[in-house]
């Protein structure tokens, strides 16, 4: 049984069709990477998966339940599927630890005291133990992005979505964020990444999908897709980015 399965998912913004009938299967503990040029629909596809964007047509099965049904309450879904954004989107008026605790406190009704040990553990695990009381503007981009990851993890999601989370970072800060993903991968988290880090995708992904103009043109294990792409467009894209 797939953890998350997309069937013919279609998403439009007005007349602009961004996803054209996408099928995608993500198994428990799998790491799937979406690659493709800007505007190919990677980000929108991710945002559809946790219902940040309502789907126009198609089915999304989360543990075999169709969450794309119009009128389905998105809030419980979002608690189970976390997402981290390219631009961090931390709450600038809260310290790092307040950013992380807000959702568990309000959604799970847990007290600060009860949360503190596990939140501290998360901060420590990602090398942020001494940054808990800092405000976002006192942190480097890499640190902010790691806090954003911790914030999503604090909700104990079953799936994590990462939307080009290293694209806004200075090159020397990319490594520390990718290390976090590596740690999560080792811990067995189910993950979907939209990414431009081809080396990282090749090293760690179970499956790589090449999106082009709103469709998955080609998918397969990274070794096959990167070394021996079947489609001409995949080949030319890879030639440009590698």
């Amino acid at each position, binding site marked *: 049984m797939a953890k998350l399965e997309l069937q013919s998912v279609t998403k439009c913004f007005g007349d602009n069709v961004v996803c054209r009938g996408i099928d995608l299967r993500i198994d428990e503990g799998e790491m799937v990477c979406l690659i493709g040029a800007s505007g190919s629909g990677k980000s929108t596809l991710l945002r559809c998966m946790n219902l940040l964007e309502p789907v126009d047509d198609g089915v999304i099965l989360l543990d075999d339940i169709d969450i794309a049904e119009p009128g389905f309450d998105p809030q419980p879904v979002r608690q189970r599927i976390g997402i981290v954004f390219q631009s961090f989107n931390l*709450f600038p008026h809260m310290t790092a630890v307040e950013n992380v605790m807000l959702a568990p406190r*309000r959604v799970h009704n847990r007290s600060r005291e009860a949360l503190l040990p596990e939140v501290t553990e998360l901060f420590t695990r990602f090398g942020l133990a001494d940054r808990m009381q800092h405000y976002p503007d006192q942190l480097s981009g890499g640190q902010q992005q790691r806090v954003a990851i911790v914030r999503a993890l604090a909700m104990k999601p079953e799936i994590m979505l990462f939307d080009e989370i290293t694209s806004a970072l200075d090159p020397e800060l990319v490594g520390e964020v990718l290390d976090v993903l590596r740690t999560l991968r080792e811990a067995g988290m189910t993950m979907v990444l939209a990414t431009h880090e081809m080396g990282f995708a090749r090293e760690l992904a179970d499956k790589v999908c090449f999106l082009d103009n709103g469709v998955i043109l080609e998918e397969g294990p990274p070794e096959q897709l990167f070394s021996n792409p079947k489609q001409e467009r995949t080949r030319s894209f890879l030639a440009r980015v590698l």
Partner: protein
Amino acid sequence: MTETNLDGPAAAPPGLTRRQIYEAQIRRRSLRVAATSTVLVLLALIVLIPLAPGWEGVKKSFFNADVFARTFPGLLEAFLLDVAIFAWSAPLIFLLGLLIALCRDARSPALYPLRLFGILYTDIFRGVPVILVIYLIGFGIPGLGLPRPWNSPYIWGTVALVLTYAAYVAEVLRSGIESIHQSQRAAAASLGLSHSDTMRFVVLPQAIRRVVPANMNLFIALQKDVALLSFIGPVEIFRQAGVYKSLLANFTPYVGAALIFLAVTIPATRYADYLMNKQARARS
């Protein structure tokens, strides 16, 4: 080589670059020009105005030291009423303004009536002169037959001020709410926060902070408009000055009242500008 190394520090004071020295010179020159022109203008005012044929009369009616000394303590005491009215109106205005702003932000169709109410409310109360609202509510509602003390002009005058100013504050807060980037709402939603929690913990705290300077300006205006309550009875500073004016047939008490107002509003205005500049710098 060695020569330039020795001469370099001597030519320029340590720590200052050539650019800094140049800019300091420019700054000193513009300061001198500004000071000179200010002094010239002031001198012209001081010398020329008393030469006007009616100056003696104006001085006697508006700048009469005797009248000033006699009336100033009474004006100060009356000003306490202005301060009190301001003090209990301001929090109410903020709360009602917030409520109206939230009404106008209501997005679900079921709440459309609330949204419509918010729009009508701000349109009406921003479109009607404050003094009319004060008369209408200050005399009209008690005229319906309310028993004492519930017909007090203090209560209904305050209500009129609160209703009017809440409309302005609501608009300012709404602009603040709309200025918070959509990505903040998205981040909150992605964590499973409800709409109301998103508003309360994520959007509002940022929005309110962002519009503090604009609201400061509104509250400075409120401090002046408190005087309008005098139309329905309370003897605050403006009315007290009017009484003195009638008794003494002299306008100096109004000048005294103006000075008292300025003593409060100028620092407040400066502070609001300071906050505004600080924010502009932080955002750039």
